[in-house]
């Protein structure tokens, strides 16, 4: 009976305060979407780290036509130079740091390039000649990059040694920055959400002061009086959180899954399923924000 009563009170509260409830839903929706976006960026970073750190670590680019580096004074790399580099990679001194390595010819480089930028007009303006051949090295310990760099930079036929992990790190730091921005926006929006929930609950308590006054007089418990108001805020916030979770899922499914992964086929994007891990966190965050903020408000505005 009491549960049915509380539920009907919540229903009437939500109806009476509809415009405020809608604004609470929207504000929690937007703020939690930013929280979730920050979470997604972190997940994406971890995903790419896992994917890329295994695959590429160090690339030794070999001289080609028109290379201007000091080591390329003798023109494009010769088969002998390439052979001796291969030997050096297999020598015990170097091999102890290496998991495995691969030679990537100009043609293979061109093919990878074409795959990677298949939708971009840049592909048409590039020929296999312009792309350097390289050795792709997978290190046992990525931190040992310096040793490889020192060993190979001065070898004849080597244009440059690049730690691709560093390139990735730069990308990751951009992504980290973006997730920081998202978190800051989320922080401001969450403050908005808390204040708005407090105002909504206050208005709701005011518009129903007649009922609560009578409830007090006939000896309704604090729980029966306050719970409908608290749940009103919590329900609105949870709806906002559900919308935010849905939006994140849609972004992962349609934007990352359908569009981005076609644009960048060899980049591992997070799947829409993975974003669902965020949903419970967002629902709990939204619900508890609303619960706490309405509890504090009621303590001041709804005397029992």
């Amino acid at each position, binding site marked *: *009976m009491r549960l049915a009563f509380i539920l009907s009170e919540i229903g009437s509260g939500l109806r009476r305060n509809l415009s405020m409830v809608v604004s609470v839903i929207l504000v929690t929706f937007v703020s939690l979407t930013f929280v979730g976006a920050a979470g997604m960026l972190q997940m994406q970073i971890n995903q790419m780290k896992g994917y890329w750190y295994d695959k590429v670590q160090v690339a030794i680019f070999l001289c080609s036509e028109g290379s201007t580096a000091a080591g390329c004074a003798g023109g494009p790399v010769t088969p002998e130079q390439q052979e001796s580099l291969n030997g050096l990679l297999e020598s015990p001194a170097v091999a102890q740091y290496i998991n495995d390595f691969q030679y990537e010819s100009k043609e293979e480089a061109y093919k990878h390039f074409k795959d990677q930028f298949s939708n971009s007009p840049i592909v048409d303006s590039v020929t296999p000649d312009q792309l350097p051949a390289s050795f792709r090295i997978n290190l046992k310990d990525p931190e040992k990059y310096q040793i490889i760099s020192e060993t190979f930079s001065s070898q004849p036929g080597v244009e440059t040694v690049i730690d691709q992990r560093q390139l990735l790190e730069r990308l990751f730091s951009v992504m980290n920055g973006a997730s920081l921005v998202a978190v800051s926006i989320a922080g401001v929006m969450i403050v908005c959400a808390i204040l708005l929930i407090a105002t909504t609950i206050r208005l709701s308590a005011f518009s129903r002061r007649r009922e609560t006054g009578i409830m007090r007089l*006939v000896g309704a418990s604090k729980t029966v009086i306050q719970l409908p108001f608290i749940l009103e805020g919590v329900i609105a916030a949870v709806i906002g959180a559900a919308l935010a979770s849905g939006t994140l899922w849609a972004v992962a499914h349609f934007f990352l899954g359908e569009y981005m992964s076609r644009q960048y086929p060899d980049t591992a994007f997070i799947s829409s399923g993975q974003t669902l891990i965020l949903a419970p966190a967002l629902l709990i965050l939204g619900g508890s924000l609303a619960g706490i903020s309405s509890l504090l408000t009621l303590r001041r505005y709804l005397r029992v």
Partner: protein
Amino acid sequence: MPCRVLRAMIRFENVTKVYDQKARPALDSVTLEIDRGEFAFLVGASGSGKSTFLRLVLKEDRATSGAVYVAGQNVARISSWRVPRLRRGIGVVFQDFRLLPQKNVFANVAFAMQVIGKSRSVIRDTVPEVLKTVGLEGKEHRMPHELSGGEQQRVAIARAVVNRPGILLADEPTGNLDPTTSMGIMGILDKINQNGTTVVMATHDDDIVNEMRKRVVELKNGVVIRDEAKALYTSMIPVVGQSRRLKDASGREEPDAGLPGDGREGGAQR
């Protein structure tokens, strides 16, 4: 002493209530007992402290000093989570009825039972019964705005007594009603009192008080200036001191209406 505590439904011991430090106290050292089953009028000019008295009984406010006992319990000692239980034992009626405008008569009365968790079937049985005692049978489905003032007050009384409280507090319940309607309301309050409920009614309606011939406690500027059994609105005898229960207007000592064995030795209480 202990038996007196048990007999008194409401007991004020040197109760002072100060709302505003700069103003005079709303109640000034009031000592008063109202017995189980008694019917008492609280009279006095506006601002004399009648409503404050009732609020202290309900623990809507706390006394600045002194002690308020309800059914033998010092209300200052009741923890906040047990205040609802105190209030379930007290019904309240106001001058402005305080009905919920969007609920019909039945729902207004049922509301008082719903919020304390009474079952649907108990509500279905009890509400019509109580509506009958206040003379509203057949009007269950009317909305408050479809009722006269007297009928609205009957709904409010039904709501106040539907949970069978031991005490009914009425704060100027006839203040908005014409004399005939008021007498009807008084009849209902009297009937409720006959059934054993202690009734305290604040009023400044002299006709009603004179008609009912019940105990009259008169307040003036927060001080009890008269306390007479079977009295009239204005005293027949000169005012003597305060906080004193005087002989009734006829000069005879009268036992109070009350529960069996609840009779009083005499009018003089202190």
